[in-house]
């Protein structure tokens, strides 16, 4: 099947962002926290995006910022997926009180907005990268739990799962060898959306001053550092908007394509 143009563009841009994040040290024109010019210099040949609030090269800050943002979002997404899907599958396969206890706990977690709960926890926790990743990942695992439980419930009633049960396979085998391969495609599409959510989440936390701490760069922090320039007509704080929006839309396009493609494999709608 040919890849639609929108998905190809999405995949290309997503790959570009990830490559820029991985090879940030090689492609960044200046050092991460190196002061190289005046405050808020306009765009020039030396500084493609101008300079920031204390005279650092904005393009360099954006590249390193992308590295931090994408790294945190990726690790948090992986954490949220492993925890959420293993618990979700366990709830679906085990049923009974295990399912009840886990589901009610997740309902409770979701009754408080994640940003508010994150703020409550961060008011006593030290603001460091592992803590932030842990808080973001575990809060988001609730959503993955709901999806993977719903998907797994549809699969557990299939004949091949019944067959595996009858031949005496353990719970681990049923979860990893029977359910996981069949639940993978909706989960992968969801993973894209969760990743975007994580990018927005960490950017918001950093913007509020409760995420990545200076002098490290990240996209939300760049907005915070340069926001005072807005009043003087300096658009430096708006540059991360372009990066976040294009990354979010690209990942969305890829996720849509994966979902459509797998839906048509199973004879569903879309194509």
């Amino acid at each position, binding site marked *: 099947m040919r890849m639609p143009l929108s998905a190809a563009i999405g995949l290309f841009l997503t790959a570009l962002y990830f490559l820029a994040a991985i090879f940030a040290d090689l492609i960044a024109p200046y050092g991460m926290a190196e002061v190289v010019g005046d405050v808020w210099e306009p765009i020039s040949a030396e500084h493609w995006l101008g300079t920031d609030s204390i005279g650092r090269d904005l393009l360099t800050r954006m590249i390193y910022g992308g590295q931090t943002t994408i790294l945190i979002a990726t690790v948090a997404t992986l954490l949220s997926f492993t925890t959420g899907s293993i618990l979700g599958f366990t709830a679906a396969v085990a049923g009974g009180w295990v399912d009840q206890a886990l589901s009610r706990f997740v*309902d*409770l*977690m979701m*009754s*408080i*907005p994640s*940003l*508010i*709960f994150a*703020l*409550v*926890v*961060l*008011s*006593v*926790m*030290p603001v460091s990268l592992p803590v932030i990743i842990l808080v973001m990942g575990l809060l988001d695992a609730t959503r993955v739990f709901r999806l993977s439980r719903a998907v797994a419930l549809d699969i557990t009633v299939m004949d091949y799962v019944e067959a595996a049960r009858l031949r005496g396979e353990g719970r681990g085998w049923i979860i990893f060898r029977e359910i996981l391969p069949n639940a993978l495609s909706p989960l992968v599409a969801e993973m894209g959306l969760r990743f*975007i959510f994580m990018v*927005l989440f960490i*950017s*918001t936390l950093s*913007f*509020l*001053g*409760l995420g990545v701490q200076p002098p490290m760069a990240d996209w*939300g922090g760049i*907005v915070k550092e340069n*926001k005072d320039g*807005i*009043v*003087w*007509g300096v*658009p430096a*704080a*708006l540059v*991360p*908007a372009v990066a*976040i*929006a294009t990354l*979010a*839309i690209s990942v*969305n396009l890829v996720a849509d394509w994966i979902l459509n493609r797998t839906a048509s494999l199973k004879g569903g709608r879309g194509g």
Partner: protein
Amino acid sequence: MHPLIRLVARRIALGILLLLAASVLIFAGTEVLPGDVASAILGQGATEKTLANLREALGLDRPAVVRYFEWLGGVLQGDLGTSLTNRRDIATTLAGRMSNTLFLAFWAAVIAVPLAILLGLVAVRYQGRWPDKLISGTTLASISVPEFLLGYIAAFFLAVQFKLLPSVATMHGGMDLGDKLMAIALPVLVLVLTVLGHMMRMTRAAILNVMQSAYIETAELKGLSPFAVIARHALPNAIAPVVNVVMINLAYLVVGVVVVEVVFVYPGMGQYLVDHVAKRDVPVVQACGLIFAAVYIGLNLLADLISIIANPRLRHPK
């Protein structure tokens, strides 16, 4: 007992239970730290004496369960405790800020709800044609940019470049309604933009779902006018899902308001919360967190109640 009343009573009881559990979770959220909360709050520069003072102020010498019930008992009587940073009563500080936040959220809701329903209807009417595609395209773009960046984009263009609106939402006592509305125009605009996308998309899906049902087709085939089809058959069934959509998005507004207040330096509850998280003022954070959670749970409860009451099948039991 009428089954409707029983359902409503059960849902309200569940809501209260959820709120209680949420208060446990918020309290526990500040206790999860392995080790001493007091030294985490004060940092490395703390002396033995300041540590001991703070431990006493927080009541850390007593077990967490006792402190939770004391806190809960106080909250139920309207006593939210005193702030660690300025020793003021939290409830009195919060009252003014809460009315500011409600003022902001109220105007955002007044504009966003009718607009979203209208645009959702337009998208259904022109389904698959350019207005529909335009609406879903803008939705995707608007949900891909975080609120705070939308805020600065709006401030940069509307306040700085074209000087139409003030870039900072200052509020003080002597302002009349017109001045206040002018001051909050930008934050309201940003809040409307952030919830509009979701609300339109969900309204569109809810109405499409109703319009595609068999009974709508039957009504059309038996020769009812399009107006009668909508008024008699589509509307009663669409109320519940649309109200649900509205409530869920108003609950989302609760979170949006926190960030937007920080962007426009608006003296509301969200900014109060964020400021005191950075200052590690635990009692303030707990109080604000609880109020935000209560509003969120309350709106979700309201959504469920309205859909129970609006469901014709539950109103006329067999």
